[in-house]
Structures are given as C-alpha cells and as structure tokens.
C-alpha cells in the first residue's frame, strides 16, 4: 500500500494519508516510550529490591509516565538568561526529529513498513548521526560549563562509536548483497545473522549501547560527574524532548537489532502460525530487556577508556570481522 502511494501522483489526498499514517506511528511510538519508561523502572525496580511505580494507575503504575509527562507539560518554561535563545529552543527539536525519522525505514513485519528504501541501513545510520548535532547545540546554547563538558563528551563518543557500528553491519551487507532492510530479513530465512555473525552482533550491541548513551556508556549525562550533562539547563517539555529522543532511539535501535541480527519478523521453525508482528515484538522485547539489564548492572566507563575501547578494540574487531566474512563468503558460497 505504502509502495503504491510513494509512486502515485502527489496530491492533497496522498499527503493526507501520509500525514495520518505518520501520526499513527508517532502515537504508537509515544505509547511505546510511555511504557518503555515504565518497564524500565519496573524491571530495574525488581532488580534493585524496589517496587518501581505502583501508585498512579493501579498496582502496576500504568499511568505513572502519563502523569510525569503531564507534569512536564505544565512546568514553567525556563530559559537561562545568558543562553543562546534561538539555539536553545531549536536544539531539542534537532535531537528529536531524526529519532522519529529513522523509524520510517524499519520493517516491523513484511507488510508494515513506511519507506522501503534501497539504502535503508545507510539511511538509518546517516540520519541517526544528526542527533549529535542537536545535543551539542543544546549543550553549547545552555551556556553552562557542565552542559558544555557533557556535549563535548557526547560528540566524541558518538563519532567514535558510529564507526564500529557501521563496520559491524558491513559483514551483513556483504552476505546479503543489499542495504535494504527487507532483503536483509529475507536472507535470514537460512539462519539468523546472530548465528552467522556473532562477532558483529557483540560489536553492534556494544556500539549501539554507546550510541544510545546508555549505561555503561552514559558519559554525556553522567549524573555523578556532570550532574545531568548536556541537558542540565533544560526543564519542562524541552527536557522531555531530549528524553523522548533518547527513548525513541531506544525503540529504533532495538528494532534495528531485531531486524539485522534476530531475523526481524521471521518465526522460529515450526512456529510460523504465530504472526510476524508477534515475533518481532518478542525479539524486540528481549533486546530491550538486555539493555535495561545492562543499566542496572554496570558501572560507567571513563571518557579516555571509552575512546580507547572504541578505537583500539571495537574497530579492529569489526574490521577483522568484515575480512573474515568476505573470505568465508567466497569459500563456502552459502549466500
């Protein structure tokens, strides 16, 4: 359906349909973010001998995040006097928009995908890199020293980890012969890439955690060091936008991991009566759980160790993986 719309004559109706679909996706994503935050708090709560939210919205705290968001909406819009006003206002938007844009190319099932782009993977990585600009802009515009340090850390970290991230998926691209995410999933009918590319999977998981600024790579906002890092001066809904960007990326990155390594919507053998969407959701939940698990387990790396690890360990490993994949592909000729 989306395919036809993409190639049809531009018009008000098409625009309306697209707008409607985008709104639906946005709502789905916001719904996810709402409950991802709740899930994170609940899971971490159980791991840390706590209850997590359990007041608003019944025993499970189902409305806690909704209440939080409402609170943020109602808060005073505070902009520091010496901040660079236009940039300060613009930064959360720059950070958030790409997070939403990357979702377009992710195939949730074989039918449900918004843009089946030939270079889907490349598109994802290119667009997601833009968020760094938003973070650095916000940090700079805040005119706060802690924010500046956080912003600088964010820039350094995201650039150094984007490279191993791209390198780790090159093996998959080699095997598939395509950057199209749909085709990547189709190829995995012979076996998920987590089996064919275990090294790439580990590198990808580490690099994506770093991209997401999550523990153990949460240096840009390192609470115990930089108070709140790049968003130290942000409050109310502007702050919520940064948080939103973070969690939408969480969603996107978990989806991408599912698509690239866990076979997307593909079922396990003999269980193909269960619809693809359910499979996708299951695998996706596992990835999310692992990332939350990381958060409650690991301490934080130091900035210089982070750089060292990225450039001296992850990158060579990813490169070796590409090399190995190329050789194996020629020798075994399985794909």
């Amino acid at each position, binding site marked *: 359906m989306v395919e036809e719309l993409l190639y049809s004559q531009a018009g008000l109706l098409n625009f309306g349909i697209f707008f409607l679909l985008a709104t639906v996706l946005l709502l789905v994503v916001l719904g996810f973010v709402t409950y991802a935050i709740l899930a994170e708090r609940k899971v971490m709560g159980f791991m840390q001998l706590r209850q997590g939210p359990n007041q608003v919205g019944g025993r499970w705290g189902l409305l806690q995040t909704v209440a939080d968001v409402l609170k943020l909406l109602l808060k005073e819009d505070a902009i520091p006097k010496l901040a660079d006003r236009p940039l300060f206002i613009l930064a959360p938007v720059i950070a958030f928009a790409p997070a939403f844009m990357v979702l377009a190319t992710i195939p949730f099932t074989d039918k449900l995908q918004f843009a089946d782009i030939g270079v889907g993977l490349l598109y994802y990585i290119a667009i997601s890199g833009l968020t760094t600009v938003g973070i650095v802009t916000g940090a700079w515009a805040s005119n706060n020293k802690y924010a500046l340090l956080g912003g600088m850390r964010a820039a350094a970290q995201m650039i150094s980890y984007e490279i191993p991230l791209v390198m780790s998926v090159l093996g998959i691209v080699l095997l598939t012969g395509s950057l199209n995410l749909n085709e990547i999933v189709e190829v995995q009918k012979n076996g998920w890439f987590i089996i064919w590319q275990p090294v790439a999977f580990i590198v990808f998981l580490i690099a994506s955690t770093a991209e997401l600024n999550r523990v153990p790579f949460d*240096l840009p906002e390192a*609470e*115990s*060091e*930089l108070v709140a890092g790049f968003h130290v001066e942000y409050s109310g809904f502007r702050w919520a936008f940064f948080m939103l960007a973070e969690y939408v990326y969480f969603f996107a990155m978990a989806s991408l991991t599912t698509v690239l390594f866990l076979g997307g919507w593909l079922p396990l053998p003999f269980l193909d009566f269960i619809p693809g969407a359910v499979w996708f959701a299951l695998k996706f939940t596992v990835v999310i759980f692992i990332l939350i698990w990381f958060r*409650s*387990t690991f*301490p934080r790396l130091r*900035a*210089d160790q982070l750089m060292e690890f990225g450039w001296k360990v992850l990158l060579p490993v990813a490169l070796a993986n590409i090399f190995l994949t190329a050789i194996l592909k020629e020798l075994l000729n399985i794909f």
Partner: protein
Amino acid sequence: MLRTEEMLLNVGPQHPSTHGVFRLVLKIDGEIIKEAKPVIGYLHRGTEKLAENLQYTQIIPYTDRMDYLAAMTNNYILVHAVETMMDIKIPDRAEYLRIITMELGRIASHLVWWGTYLLDIGATSPFLYAFREREMIINMLNEISGGRLTFNYMRVGGVKWDAPEGWIEKVKEFIPYMREQLEGYHQLVTGNEIFMNRVKGVGKYTKDDALNYSLSGANLRCTGEKWDLRKDEPYSIYDRFDFDVAVQEGGDAWSRYHVRMKEIEESLKILEQAARQFPSEGDILAKVPKIIKAPKGEAFVRIESPRGEIGCYIASDGKKEPYRLKFRRPSFYNLQILPKLLEGENIANLIAILGAIDIVLGEVDG
C-alpha cells in the same frame, strides 16, 4: 584564531557526588584538572565551642552528629576520654555491648561507603543492596538504643540501655547472612572489568605521602602501613579478640576498596567472638557520680573509627563542663591530600578519588 582556554568549574556544594556539602573550585583545561581548591565549612556547627557550655553527658548527642554514619564510635571517643580522666572501671557487659554496637556501626558505615562509591562510579544497583544489609544493622541498633542514626547510646561509665531479649541472637544470625552477601558483592562488583579499570591506579600515593599528610584508617592502610589502633593501642576490650588488620600495598583506590571490604570481614570476626563471649548478666553502667566532673587536668585519647583515627582532647578545670574540647576528626585530615591527588586528573577520576577517601561532611566541618 584557535586557542584553548582554562575554565573555572565550581563543583558543589550541591553537586550529587560530593557526599554532602563539600565544594571544590577546579581550574580545568578540557576535562583535565589543573588545580583544585577545596572549600569546606558549609556544615560547621561549632561542636567544640558548644561543648564548652554543656555537661559531659549533654555533649554525647553532639558527637552523634559529627560522623553520622558511625555515630557509635563517636559516642565512644567522648565517653572514653572522660572515663580516662576519671579513671572509671567499665563493667564487662557494657564493654561487650560497646564493642558489638561499634563494630555493627563500622560495617554499616563501610556499607554506605561501598554503595555510594559504586553510585559515584555509575553503577546504581549496589547502593540498594548495601542499604538492604545496612537496614538490618540499623534496625538492630534501633532496637538497643532507640535511634536509627543518632544513637546517643554510650554513657560515661557504660551504656544507656541493656540489650533486649533475643538481641544477641539477632546479631549472631546476622553474621553468616552478611558473609554470604559479601560474597555476592564481590561477584557483582569486584571482578567487574569496568570497575577495575575505573579504580586501579587511580588516586595513587606512597606510604610517605600518607604519613606526611597524616592520613589514617583505610587511606593509610592501603599503602601497606599496618596501623590499626584496635591492634596497636588496644582500647576497651579489643585485646580479647582475634582479628587481622586489613592491609593492601597498592596505595590506589582499588587498594582502599579492598581494605574496606576486608574490614567488614574482620568486623564480622570480632562480632562473632564478642557475641559468643557476651556475659549473660552484669551491670551496664559503672558506679559514677550523678553529675560528672572530670578532674582538673587534660587527656587525649584516640580510637579507630571507620574513617580513621578519631581523637578527643579534653582540658578540664574540674567543673562539670569541659574547659576545652577538641576532636581530631579523621575525615578532615584525610581530605588534606585531595588537591595533590587531583592535579592532572580528569573529572571522572575526581569523583573516583574523592569517593575513595570516604569523607563525611559532618565530620570534616565539625
């Protein structure tokens, strides 16, 4: 033209990792610290001056508020000083109660340190695990003294309250439980690669430095200097127990971590023996006059608190209030080495170094 600029960064007194109201003025170049200037005094209450107008028993609650994480040891240093001046013989049962409460306090204090240090390093879970165990200790101390943090438990000549029925059994049960949990702590944190990278070789100093800066406690023992007043100048009845002094050679945050973890184990050993030897009956308060008057003269005593050597100097002119009271507060002395350690380090290390010193601001500011 491109150029770099040094920046003045104010850390604290409301920064999340300064463990209270400690403030640091940093001169930084990027993230590298060129110069660090500690600023203290935000929690100064003038305990020593206030004490000059208070009777000895009235001073005890003030000592609770100095090192509020190990209030029992602080209680003890004051009553110990007065007892030394008045030459009072303490009943055995009271001595055992003192040792047990002090060692429980030491474990609780180290648990807080462990949890908050890991929180500083960026791991959130250990904090909650540590507080689960600490809560048990606090409940036990609450049961015997009526307070959870500020106990006001010791008195000149003994202790205020006797152990309630079944209390010693609770302590006995706690010991194996704590050992088991300690094992879990080591599995979760000690072997973690990231944690090791964060603390190994960080904040390193030599034995000479430590002695010159008059560091004490774990900050001294991490350099290989085997000095523990419980062993070297036994006070109370510490000479009756068999325990080791935790020592490490490295002189870095990693060594300090190990010293403190080992000290928890040693405290458990002491607790085990004390609970076993605990006399089934006896007085908890020696025969002391209603109004305590230290004889004319002066005395200085020192004991081993969880943070180091805590000392108390009393000058008395024979009245019911001291003429002058002075505490040697270990956190304050341990903090002196900080500017030296911070030079050339980055901001992430600042937190790791400051946390490893284990300061309590109530004690630093007095």
